[in-house]
């Protein structure tokens, strides 16, 4: 008897050790992968704080010998990142407002009103998600060229006020349909207008969906490169992404270093996204999961 129980105790111990080993391997792999993914960021931040001498040193040093906060000041003022950032904030916030309000408005129409062709029109909304942007890019460019909007921010802002994107309409519609229609009916009987119902009943209940679409719209507009590349020509109108690209292609005097400024610029372009991610992490995840499960 005692031999058997000793064996089973040992078997238990072996199993426990095996489990511990597996867990240790799991954590080692996960943590080293995380560090690998974060390394480019850390390296960039470190490079952005180096002196010109440090950044060109071979072999490269992990950390700056003297921390050069003024790199950011130089990038902000002399390399125009202050202007680019201001432009990006204007373009992003105006198109964000357009995307969220317009797609919400349209989704409310699809979710709460009966009208002929509703199903057909909603299918059209969904099918536009499959359309590659290249097919519409050239005529849209020619259209804005004809109305004289090239080299203004209008092509980056105005379209978002007309529908706000098929996926966003879809997401809002799904969300609004989960809000009980009895609430609308009660308000209608009390004589409330449809706009008031939208504002007083639907909007307050749809806050998570609004945050999700808002976050995705912010990322989309802030990170947009193709739009500014095609529509903007004057440097004083550039957004951060296009400004970074312009600085990279800028040929100064021979040997004039710009890598530390490029790194500072890349950090500044990324910081708003990182902050937004930490503030609104769960809305990111929600938005993506909706795409995956229902798209």
């Amino acid at each position, binding site marked *: 008897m005692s031999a058997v129980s000793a064996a089973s105790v040992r078997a238990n111990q072996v199993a426990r050790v095996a489990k511990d080993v597996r867990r240790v391997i799991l954590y080692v792999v996960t943590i080293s992968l995380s560090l690998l993914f974060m390394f480019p960021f850390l*390296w960039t931040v470190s490079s952005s704080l180096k002196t010109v001498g440090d950044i060109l040193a071979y072999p490269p040093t992990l950390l700056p010998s003297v921390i050069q906060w003024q790199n950011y000041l130089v990038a902000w003022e002399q390399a125009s990142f202050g202007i680019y950032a201001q432009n990006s904030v204007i373009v992003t916030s105006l198109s964000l407002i357009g995307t969220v309000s317009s797609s919400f408005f349209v989704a409310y*129409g699809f979710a709460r*009103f009966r009208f002929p062709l509703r199903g057909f029109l909603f299918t059209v909304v969904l099918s536009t998600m499959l359309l590659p942007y290249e*097919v519409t890019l050239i*005529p849209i460019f020619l259209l804005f060229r004809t109305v004289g909007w090239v080299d203004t921010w209008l092509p980056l802002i105005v379209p978002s006020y007309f529908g706000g994107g098929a996926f966003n309409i879809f997401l809002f519609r799904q969300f609004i349909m989960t809000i009980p229609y009895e609430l609308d009916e009660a308000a209608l009987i009390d004589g409330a207008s449809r706009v008031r119902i939208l504002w007083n009943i639907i909007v307050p209940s749809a806050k998570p969906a609004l945050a999700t679409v808002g976050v995705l719209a912010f990322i989309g507009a802030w990170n947009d490169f193709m739009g500014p590349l095609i529509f903007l020509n004057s440097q004083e109108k550039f957004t951060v992404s296009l400004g*970074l690209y312009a600085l*990279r292609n800028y040929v100064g005097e021979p040997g004039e270093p710009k890598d530390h400024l490029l790194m500072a610029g890349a950090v500044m372009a990324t910081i708003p996204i990182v902050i937004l991610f930490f503030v609104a992490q769960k809305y990111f995840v929600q938005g993506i999961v909706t795409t995956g499960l229902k798209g």
Partner: protein
Amino acid sequence: MASVAKAASASRGFRGGIDPLGEIKSMSAARRREALQGYLFIAPWVIGFLSFTFYPMISSFWYSFNDYKILTPAVWVGLRNYLYAFTGKPLGADGDPLFWLSLLRTLTWGVVTVPLAVFGALLTAVLLNQAARGTSIYRTCFFLPSLTPGVAAILLWTWILQPQIGVFNSVIKAATGLQGPNWLGSMEWALPSLAMISLWSAVGGSRMIIFLAALQGVPKEVYESAKVDGANAIQSWWHITVPLITPAIFFNLLLGIIGSFHVFTSAFVATGGGPAYATYFYALHLYNQAFKSFDMGYASALAWILFVIIMAFTLVQIKLSDRWVYYEAAR
């Protein structure tokens, strides 16, 4: 009472009429009011669809049969733009020398990066799903690269891959004494370098989150009962997990393939399509035709060829999916 209201709201579907005007006329005043209000609410989308989707589609289809270089009026040339594309090297001598090349580069890109990205995303999702502590920290580490603005991501990698003083080649030199490759500047390594950059930003992004949600959606009881029946970890992975997450795998593959045809920013910023066209992707070619040469007619033809290819891939994928995607019957 509640059930009456429910039945009323359930009947609020579209009834499939094909004569909207006739239908509106036959409505009661209240219903007509509701329909008109509905149209008013969706009006912004209707205007946007007509001016930024429908009209541009018709228009680019029309331009694709025209010689149109912006400054002079469009001239009808029939199929010439399409022929020019298809008869380029290696299928002909007179056509666009870069059409097949750029298409081949793009397909290579898709074949290399999509399976790797989807597999990598699944792997990281499995890791995250296993880890008991600190999941949100790891998730953040994996996720942030996918949110980094494309240009910034390329710039930070260009700096890491800098051949002389970049951190990669410095480590290679210190470890082996050999000079590392020229990365983005070399014919052989430019495409792999871009692939590596794209994996960095693609593995931990939305794909991973979708897989994570799918993995968490597999009911725990199924694993437990399989364990009782004597299944080991590998068996329950292949016979429970994989079948139940096939919709997520399918979705990620489909979106990955579609996305791979649009690859633009990374090559445009990092290599400009070079060296010697090693990373000259289709979207880059299209951009150059449209916005460098201002050959809008030919660029429109390129766009429509791309459209047809993407649609074909999508349909084939959806057809194939019937064979291996498992959807829960209850859905």
